[in-house]
């Protein structure tokens, strides 16, 4: 068994070197970017300033990237007012202003997750059904394991069929211990036992996988609150991170998800998965603008290294197609 893990690890590490840190995101966002760039160029070519038609087209362009009407309008207002002040308003300037405006919104949310400030550092992973919680957990686990940290997974999704088996399969593949009970067990009880063990053995990072649930179901939100309380009872300050996973394919509902999960649990970080499709990712700008929650990671592919620390400028560069940026 150990042989298998080592081989997989090597493969993963090799492919990571080849692709470079942001290469994955670039590649993942290429479709989005190609569309955006081509259209942005078309819109901006020969335009001296933001006239009505340009604004309309810019608005549509950004909306197609799921940025949301409200955010887009605010963004355009912002860009328009900065342009009015200056002179020499060529298309390049307009584009760089749009990008700067986006960076300005995203920058304050750029705050990588520091897992060294507690031991064990407990991360509770939450989100609606099917956003990629378990896969993200596997990717995070692999990342920290490579850094030499001792990681534990906790299978607190005791509801969905074979959710435990899914996490266990990842644990086996990555060589990470998975604490589990049977299907239908009380998730808080699973977390309680796991944290006791993790504390006794002084592990570095504990990642708790919870069942996906729609943010509108109050009873299920209460279950998460209970898990949170129980974690805090075993270890002061736990969970240190309540990490909300969002699916990049999701449209404006991501805002509602973030708001309601935040209201119930006090979300401390967000990660966006599946940024490797087409025309997506804009909702992160809306999220950054409307909520003060740090964005920790973006997931840009199925490979293990396709989970990357969120960087505002790189994200904006890729979104608007400025590779040099």
């Amino acid at each position: 068994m150990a042989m298998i893990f080592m081989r997989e690890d090597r493969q993963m590490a090799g492919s990571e070197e080849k692709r470079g840190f942001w290469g994955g995101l670039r590649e993942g966002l290429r479709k989005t970017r190609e569309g955006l760039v081509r259209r942005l160029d078309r819109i901006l070519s020969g335009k001296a300033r933001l006239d009505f038609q340009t604004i309309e087209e810019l608005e549509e362009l950004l909306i197609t990237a799921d940025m949301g009407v409200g955010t887009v309008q605010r963004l355009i207002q912002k860009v328009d007012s900065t342009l009015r002040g200056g002179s020499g308003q060529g298309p390049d300037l307009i584009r760089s202003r749009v990008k700067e405006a986006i960076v300005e919104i995203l920058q304050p949310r750029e705050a990588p997750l520091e897992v060294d400030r507690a031991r064990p550092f407990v991360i509770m992973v939450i989100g609606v059904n099917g956003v990629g919680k378990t896969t993200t957990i596997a990717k995070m686990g692999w990342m920290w394991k490579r850094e030499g940290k001792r990681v534990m997974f906790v299978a607190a999704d005791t509801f969905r069929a074979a959710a435990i088996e899914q996490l266990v399969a990842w644990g086996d593949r990555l060589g990470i211990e998975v604490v589990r009970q049977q299907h239908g067990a009380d998730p808080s009880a699973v977390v309680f036992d796991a944290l006791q063990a993790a504390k006794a053995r002084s592990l570095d990072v504990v990642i708790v996988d919870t069942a996906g649930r729609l943010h509108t179901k109050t009873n299920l939100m209460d279950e998460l609150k209970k898990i949170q309380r129980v974690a805090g009872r075993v270890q002061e300050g736990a969970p240190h991170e309540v990490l909300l996973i969002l699916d990049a394919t999701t449209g404006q509902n991501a805002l509602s998800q973030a708001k309601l999960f935040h209201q119930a649990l006090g979300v401390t970080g967000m990660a966006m998965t599946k940024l490797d499709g087409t025309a997506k990712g804009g909702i992160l700008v809306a999220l950054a603008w409307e909520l003060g929650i740090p964005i920790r990671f973006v997931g840009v592919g199925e490979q293990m290294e396709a989970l990357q620390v969120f960087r505002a400028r790189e994200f904006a560069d890729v979104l608007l197609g400025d590779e040099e940026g």
Partner: protein
Amino acid sequence: MFDNLSEKLQALFKRLRGHGTLTEANIQEALREVRLALLEADVHYKVVKEFIESVKEKALGQEVLQSLTPGQQLLKVVHQELVRLMGEGERRLNLSGSPASLMLVGLQGSGKTTTAAKLAKWLRAQGKTVGMVPADVYRPAAIEQLEQLGRMLNVPVYKPAQGEDPVSISVKSQNWAREKGLQVLILDTAGRLHIDEPLMEELRKIKVAVAPKEVLLVVDAMTGQDAVQIAQSFNEKLQITGVILTKLDGDARGGAALSIRAVTLRPIVLVGVGEKLDALEVFYPDRMASRILGMGDVLTLIEKAQAAYDEKKALELERKLRKEEFTLEDLLEQIRQVRKMGPLEDLVKMIPGAGNIRGALDPTFGEKELKKMEAIICSMTKEERRNHTIINGSRRLRIAKGSGTTVQDVNRLLKNFLEMRKMMKKMGKMRRFAMGRGIPLWSR
């Protein structure tokens, strides 16, 4: 942001009262609101554009019905057009052949496996013998998940050989189904990105090998603008036959439904509305239309008001109010108009964002109260109804006995009636009393 489109439109249209027809000028601003509402609901912008154009074409020049405001009239056109675009009656699954294979395809996390189980349960309830096939060999424990669901439902699940590839699994399961005498076979394929060429090719191979009766695209109702590309790619590669929309039990407005319909022209067959395995429903285009517009059942309300309210009577009432001729007989008429529209609580519930209205209404002022008022007035003589001043003590006692109420009830009614008259007189003077339009009593 645009949770309450209808409220916005109402406000907008208050300024537009008195127009006889819908014109470019009086619907422009409203169309803009509709456009924003659709975008907020995640309908693709190109689809929105086309939709707005077609609504405009249909609406322009339309005569505004007597009992409606231009706003309500336009909203009706918008709603009708949405319903028309999203559905053409009920669509039944093609279950001919032995077995009839149904192939579920879609992105990761859209809910294919859960939907497979729901579908199995749903079809079995219709008397079919059903089996499920796990053709997802990529996601860890995906096969195990379907097996567990099968055990829960007592539905047989094909067991793939170790390392068997999805195409082979799909082909072999056909014989397995025949041996077991199954009528329907549900193929649960692996989630994949629509731009993942090798995996899309794998699906095409499965389709060619199995010749499924239905290829159903499973889409998350929360999907954003990308729904168009997703649906287009899957449709181009696989010629999907229908769509299943999942996770509709959340608060997503579900504009993806319209986008998908627009680019594929395939029907939305079923919707997933919960985590339980029986939470699968037939798709209702009218409900979806209201949901996308974010306007509750305001359309039903408009229609009810339209049916219940007679314009001529309303005008007569307005005249009477101005001349202070409002009598108990008129009050009776009003009560009957309101009651014709259905239970009051239901009516209030139909108004989107009705929270404040519900709060403003006296909680006791419900259906029961209206019934009581009706009974009391009915126990009065014609003369008493026309001239309330003659109702003395002994008349009150008689009316109470006749209506099965108490003198206090009669007194309260008379007091309310007088207050109402006073208030109406004031409002009449301000000429803002809008009884002649739309909904009586609540119209502001």
